[in-house]
C-alpha cells in the first residue's frame, strides 16, 4: 500500500541547465507520445533522482506498512481471518520486494535504500506512524488505507517509467483483494454486536485524520511539481486523489451506519467537490519529520530485523555458498 504525500527532492533551477538540450527534448517528446522510459534509456539526472526517491518511499511504505497490521496476524479472530490477513501482509512484503527491484534498475541497491530507511534519511508513508490499537484498526487499514493506496497507485501505474508501471500493475491487482478483504471485515464489525460496532466506530474516529493526511498536503501549499507532472512521475495531484477517495468511500462508510468525525464533511452538489475541515498540516509535518506516535518504534523494529539478519545475508555471500533461490 502507499499514498501520496511523497517527499520530493527540492529542485534547483540549474538542475536542467546541465542536461544536453537535444537529448532532453527527445526525452520529453517520448513522454508526450506516451512511450515508457526503460532503464537503459537516456534520462535527465533529475528524473532519475526523483523516481528513485518516489519508488524507494513506496517500497519502504510497504515493509513498514506490514508492521501495524502484522501485529494482528497472531490475534486475528478465526481461521478465515487469520489466513487472509497472513496472505495480505505477505503480499505487502512482496510489494516491497518488487518495488526495490524496480528502484534498483535506476542504480541504487536495496541495501543502500534500506540503510537510508533505517537512518531516517528516506521517508515512508506517514500513516504508518500511527498505532493499530485494536482489531478494528487493522480492518480500517486493510479496507481504507489500501483503498487510498489504490487511488494513488492506479494513477501512478500510468506514469512514464516502465519498470515502476509494471510493478504497479501487479501490485494493484493484489491490492484489490486486500480492499475486498478489508471491506468484508469492516462490514462484519459495523453490522455486528454492540461491542463490535463501537470498536469499528472508534477506529474510524482514530484513523480519519491520518487518512486525510495520507494523500499529502493540499495543492495550495505543496511544493511545485509541474515538471514531475510533465515527466509523468507524479500523475495526479494530492487534492485530486483525496477527492477521488472521498467520493468513492465516504458513501460506503455512511452506508454501514458509521459516522466520519468531521461535521463539515459534505459533497458540494454544485461543484461536485467534497468539503471538509482543513486537515492539520502542522501535525502532518511534525509526524513525517519523525515526531509521530510510532516513528521511533517502526524504525527500531526495522533496524533490529536488519541487525539480527545480518549474519544470514553475510552467509549467503560466503564463497562456499551457492546462491539460494527461495522456493516457497
Amino acid at each position: 500500500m502507499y499514498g501520496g504525500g511523497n517527499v520530493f527532492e527540492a529542485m534547483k533551477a540549474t538542475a536542467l541547465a546541465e542536461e544536453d538540450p537535444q537529448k532532453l527534448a527527445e526525452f520529453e517528446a517520448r513522454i508526450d507520445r506516451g512511450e515508457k522510459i526503460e532503464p537503459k534509456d537516456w534520462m535527465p539526472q533529475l528524473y532519475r533522482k526523483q523516481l528513485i526517491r518516489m519508488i524507494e518511499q513506496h517500497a519502504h511504505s510497504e515493509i513498514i506498512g506490514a508492521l501495524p497490521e502484522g501485529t494482528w496476524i497472531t490475534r486475528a479472530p478465526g481461521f478465515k481471518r487469520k489466513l487472509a490477513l497472513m496472505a495480505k501482509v505477505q503480499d505487502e512484503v512482496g510489494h516491497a520486494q518488487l518495488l526495490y527491484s524496480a528502484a534498483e534498475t535506476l542504480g541504487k541497491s536495496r541495501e543502500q535504500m534500506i540503510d537510508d530507511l533505517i537512518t531516517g534519511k528516506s521517508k515512508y508513508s506517514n500513516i504508518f506512524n500511527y498505532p493499530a490499537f485494536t482489531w478494528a484498526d487493522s480492518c480500517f487499514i486493510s479496507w481504507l488505507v489500501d483503498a487510498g493506496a489504490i487511488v494513488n497507485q492506479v494513477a501512478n501505474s500510468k506514469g512514464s517509467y516502465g519498470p515502476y508501471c509494471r510493478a504497479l500493475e501487479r501490485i494493484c491487482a493484489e491490492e484489490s483483494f486486500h480492499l475486498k478483504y478489508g471491506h468484508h471485515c469492516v462490514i462484519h464489525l459495523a453490522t455486528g454486536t454492540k461491542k463490535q460496532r463501537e470498536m469499528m466506530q472508534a477506529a474510524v474516529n482514530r484513523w480519519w485524520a491520518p487518512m486525510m493526511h495520507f494523500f499529502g498536503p493540499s495543492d495550495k501549499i505543496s511544493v511545485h511539481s509541474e515538471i514531475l507532472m510533465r515527466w509523468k512521475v507524479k500523475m495526479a495531484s494530492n487534492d485530486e486523489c483525496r477527492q477521488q477517495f472521498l467520493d468513492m468511500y465516504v458513501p460506503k462508510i455512511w452506508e454501514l451506519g458509521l459516522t466520519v468525525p468531521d461535521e463539515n464533511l459534505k459533497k458540494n452538489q454544485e461543484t461536485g467537490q467534497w468539503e471538509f475541515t482543513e486537515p492539520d498540516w502542522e501535525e502532518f509535518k511534525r509526524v513525517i519529520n519523525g515526531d509521530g506516535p510510532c516513528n521511533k518504534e517502526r524504525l527500531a523494529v526495522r533496524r533490529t530485523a536488519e541487525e539480527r539478519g545480518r549474519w544470514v545475508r553475510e552467509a549467503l555471500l560466503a564463497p562456499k555458498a551457492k546462491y539460494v533461490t527461495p522456493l516457497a
Partner: protein
Amino acid sequence: MNTEALKELLYKIADDQLILGHRNSEWTGFGPLLEEDIAFSSMAQDKVGQSWQFYKILNELGESDPDTVAFMRNADQFHNCQFVELPNGEYDFSLIRHFLFDTAELIRFTMLADSTYEPISQLAKKIRGEVKYHTMHANIWIKQLGSATPESIQRLQDSLNQAMPYALGIFEPSPFEDDLISSGTFVGEKALESEWKKQIKEIIDQTELDLPDMDSLTPAFGGRSGNHTEHLQPLLDEMSEVFRVDPTADW
C-alpha cells in the same frame, strides 16, 4: 476403528500444524531478508490451512467446530509436541526447527497417504504436495548456512543441539499406538522416527554440522498429553485475544 485413537491422532497433527504455523507467521515483517519473510509466511499459511482441514475432520467425528476448537481451548487441552510451541528465537533456531519438524511432517503425511482411514489418506495426499516444498526450502538453507561462515555454522550447530531433545519429542508414542498400527490407520511413531533419523542425517552430512548423539538425549515428551512448556499458554492467549471478546460474534 477406535474413534478415540483416531481423534488422538488427528488432534496431535492439527495442533502441531496450527501452533507451528502461528510461530512461522511471527516472522512476517522481521525476516533476515524479504524473501525469507515471504517464505515463512507461505509455510505459515499452509500449516494453518492444513490444521483447519484436520479440525474439520474432527468436527465430523463429533468435536466442536474448528474455530471453537482452535481458539477456545487452554494449553493443557492441546496435543502438539513441545517443539512447535518454543519461541522463534533467532533465525538459526527457526530454520533448524523448520528443517527438523518439516522433514518429520513430510514423512508422516507420506505414510498417512496410505492410511486405511479414507478422510486422512485423501487429505494427506494433498498436503504431501505442499509440504514437499517446505522441506526443499529447509534443505537448501541448511546446506547453505551449515557450510558458509564460522558464525552461521556455529549458530546452526548451537540451535541443532538445543532443538534435538524437543525434536525427538515429536515421536512421543500415543497410548493407542497398537490400535493405529493394527487397523492400518498409521504405521506408528517408531517407524516415522527411524525414517526421519535417516533423512536428516543425509542432509546434515552434507554440511559442516554434527548431528548430536540422539541415543544419549532425553526426548521432551509430554506435549501429546497436554503437558506443555510455559510458552504455549501465552501464545494461545494472544491468538484468542480478539475471538474471546465475544466468541459468539461473527468476526
